[in-house]
């Protein structure tokens, strides 16, 4: 590991991926053309990454010359990749932003089915977090406010009893599972 001063550049993030619990891609973006230029290489990397990370809940791993930070919930795995010399804490802040944004969008219901249901919004959120390798925003609150475009939510007073009950049940379920 040679000593390395980091090049001053905004291009910090090499890739972002959300995988399911079989290691299949739900969404993934790679921002450096020199790293995994084809979909085949990307998927091979994701498989490898998943195999190395899905059992050990260790938060960080170095693989194929990349530093990968990750986080999982139920049946989803979130990854953020940067160069092997990158400041790990910057990568972590992006990962946290990604996770928290998705969690708020899905109202803490972070699981595969929910992501696929709101896939359009999750795509928009990912686009708002990183653009072409540059971190656009790492504050989940402001990311969510920018993609919160649906106006079809109902104020709590006007919700039916069943709806309130349903949402309370969900909240309870997730606080237990956590």
């Amino acid at each position: 590991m040679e000593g390395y001063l980091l090049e001053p550049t905004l291009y910090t993030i090499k890739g972002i991926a959300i995988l399911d619990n079989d290691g299949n891609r739900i969404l993934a973006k790679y921002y450096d053309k020199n790293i995994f230029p084809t979909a085949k290489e990307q998927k091979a990397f994701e498989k490898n990454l998943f195999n190395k990370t899905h059992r050990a809940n260790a938060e960080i791993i170095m693989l194929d010359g990349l530093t990968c930070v990750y986080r999982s919930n139920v049946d989803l795995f979130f990854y953020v990749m940067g160069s092997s010399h990158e400041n790990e804490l910057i990568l972590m802040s992006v990962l946290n932003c990604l996770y928290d944004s998705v969690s708020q969008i899905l109202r803490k219901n972070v699981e595969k089915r929910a992501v696929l249901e709101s896939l359009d919004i999750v795509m928009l959120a990912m686009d708002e977090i990183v653009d072409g390798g540059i971190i656009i925003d790492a504050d989940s609150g402001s990311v969510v406010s920018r993609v919160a475009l649906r106006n079809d939510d109902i104020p709590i007073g006007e919700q039916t009893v069943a709806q309130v009950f349903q949402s309370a049940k969900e909240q309870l379920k997730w606080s237990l599972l956590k």
Partner: protein
Amino acid sequence: MNSFKRDKKEEEDGGSQFLNLEKTTVLQEARIFNETSVNPRKCTPVLTKLLYAINQGETLSAKEATDVFFAMTKLFQSKDAVLRRMVYLGIKELSSLADDVIIVTSSLTKDMTGKEDTYRAAAIRALCSITDATMLQAIERYMKQAIVDRNSAVSSAALVSSLHMSKLAPDVVKRWVNEAQEAVNSDNVMVQYHALGLLYHIRKSDRLAVTKLVARLTRMSLKSPYAVCMLIRITAKLLEEDDEAGGNDSPYFNFIEACLRHKSEMVVYEAAHAIVNLKRTTSRELVPALSVLQLFCGSAKATLRFAAVRTLNQVAISHPAAVTACNLDLENLITDSNRSIATLAITTLLKTGAESSVDRLMKQIATFVSEISDEFKVIVVQAIRALALKFPRKHGVLMNFLSAMLRDEGGLEYKASIADTIITIIEDNPEAKESGLAHLCEFIEDCEHVSLAVRILHLLGKEGPKTKQPSRYIRFIYNRVILECPSIRAAAVSAMAQFGASCPDLLENIQVLLARCQMDSDDEVRDRATYYSNILALQDKSLYNNYILDPLQISITALERSLKEYIQNPEEQPFDIKSVPLAAVPTPEEKEMKHKAEGMLVTQGGPVKPPPVSREENFAEKLSIIPGIQQLGPLFKSSDVVELTESETEYFVRCIKHCFNNHLVLQFDCLNTLSDQLLEQVRVQLEPSEGYRLLLDVPCPRLPYNESGSCYVVLQFPEDDLPNTVGTFGAVLKFVVKDCDPATGLPDTDEGYDDEYMLEDLEITLGDQIRRVTRANWAAAWEEAATEGYTEMEDTYSLSSMHTLEEAVQSIASFLGLQPAERTDRVPEGKTVHTLLLSGMFRGGADILVRAKLALTDGVTMQLTVRSPDPAIAELITSAVG
């Protein structure tokens, strides 16, 4: 809090719509985009599916992409926010695939300048993905406005897009520097960060401007931790480039050090990382950075621990002593649940540990080594190897530990790395040899990996005869002949033959064993036994040396290629093995590199390097463009690179000297560093010393800015006049200059003018004409040389400029270009007399053997004895040293 939930009905089949999605069906569904009234409820899911399919790796043809892109543009009619935003995403995704994407420019420009804030930022980013350099001028005005917009999202989007665009149109983006400057002062943290990134990118080639920027920004405290990280990187770069700015109280360094007390951990780590990696940092300056890292080691966050231990691992290479303060914290990390952290902690500890702590550390590792995976065990083994080289006296503990690891379960890679380590220790430390060989003997008794057993048998054959009691190894080796598969049996036979050739008192017994092997069921084993038994029966020392003790010197890949060629074009003459180039002897630096490369987590699973090809073979291919090069015969040796100019000058010229049997080919690699010049007909004019004949001159036809090209000069060595082959040539670079436009690289006129540039003198040395040859058994070759009528020359020199024996050994070996044999290049500590044994081959194929007896008095006194079949060569060497 907004809700993103859909209808109950849609929720139920949610997710399944993305299963087994096919490109063709999605494209079919995308036809609803063309309906006259756009229904967002129907179109959004279809567009999502399309983007999902592309993200899954489906590739669209240009026509498919263009069709669906145009259909998508119809969706601009809808006012639905989600749909509009998805269209932007679609535009970005398809912009590189579809044709005529600029058609949406006006729609996007309208959104970007419109009132709807949720559209504006995203529209800018989409717009810049479809814009090219010429189009950029048209939207320049809007971009400038957007950069200083009050909405932070818009401003950020414009800054980020500008940075992307600066790859296409650097000149246009440069004009926005004032706007970027204004944006740096923004209250929004992200805008500040992006503006700094853009500003630095525009200004980075202008040192003075960067200095000003840093001076200004380090005074005003930036709010964004990202921006501070960026500023630390810029400052560190300035510090690194500029040695004069150094001094402990440099404002730059003070800024970085102050960042160690920042409230954001990200910034603190960035600052510590920068300090650790600055080359000029002294151990004293390192202390505050280390105490920060030490604190991180105890953090609850795995990422923080990882970052800290990884950086400490780096420090351990440059300042091992400084890290010792953190040893206690590192020891706590050995049992970390994250294996990467644990392994990094161990390797760091092993690097920094003092000799006294080795025993304790090894005991600690022994407790958990069985729990970790093979991959990490290999890293531990590599760290032990480094330790053994550092503390030769500890070989007993380490060797026992390794042999215990050898007995454990494990895969080939793991076992091989242990065996490798033991072999390295044996080679490096004569005291460890006996015990190391004993461990290896024990290991092959029960070894399931054929390749490993073969290697160990080979090593036993090489090292065993030189031990005090060679006979004890014979039993182990012969056991293999009885019990193992054919390839191991064959290796065992070869190993036994080595004992027979080196130890005369064992010869009789060996012959009996070889006779038994001649009854083996396998052809190869029988052949080897017969071959060795016959040679040993002749009792001729020189035959022993040439056919048993010394391995084949030539490069195996080159031999394979030559044989293939020979079979394809049969010639009258029999194949001559002398025509095959010799294998390259790895230089100590290369070996060093190899060792360094190991033991790093980063290289794990990286690309597999191609098998090493000798430098000469590489060059031989490159040189084949010179007309008539084939007549010169095979390439004998290529020298290291010699720089003929300072590296910062207008033209940067380096020379590589290629030596053939009777010819010298000089390769000049030139680099043009002037952006406003195009060079043509570049050649080097030489003034060769007496006796050299200039045969051919191959100029480099074109040398544009920042490209390197090569020109060549072919010379013939002076015939029958060896002393004159060493000399100094004057050199001048000659070329035709055409002035050109720096931006395009096209010449202004067709007419050029001649110009020349003085180069430093080029020296042709003795070392250029000599190739290193490794001799396994130097003493035998030396004796043999005496009996075969080699000329012997002897002389005594006083090397007054040398003050240590190591220095003398190094400089003699490199000056003569000879390979030290029998590890005599290492001077035992505290000795005042040393004998250096060297061997090599002069161009044309004459062997050279040199013995240098060194004695340390005030300077170094050397008695040099040269043996070579050619008297002229021997004389040349003795005269060259003086």
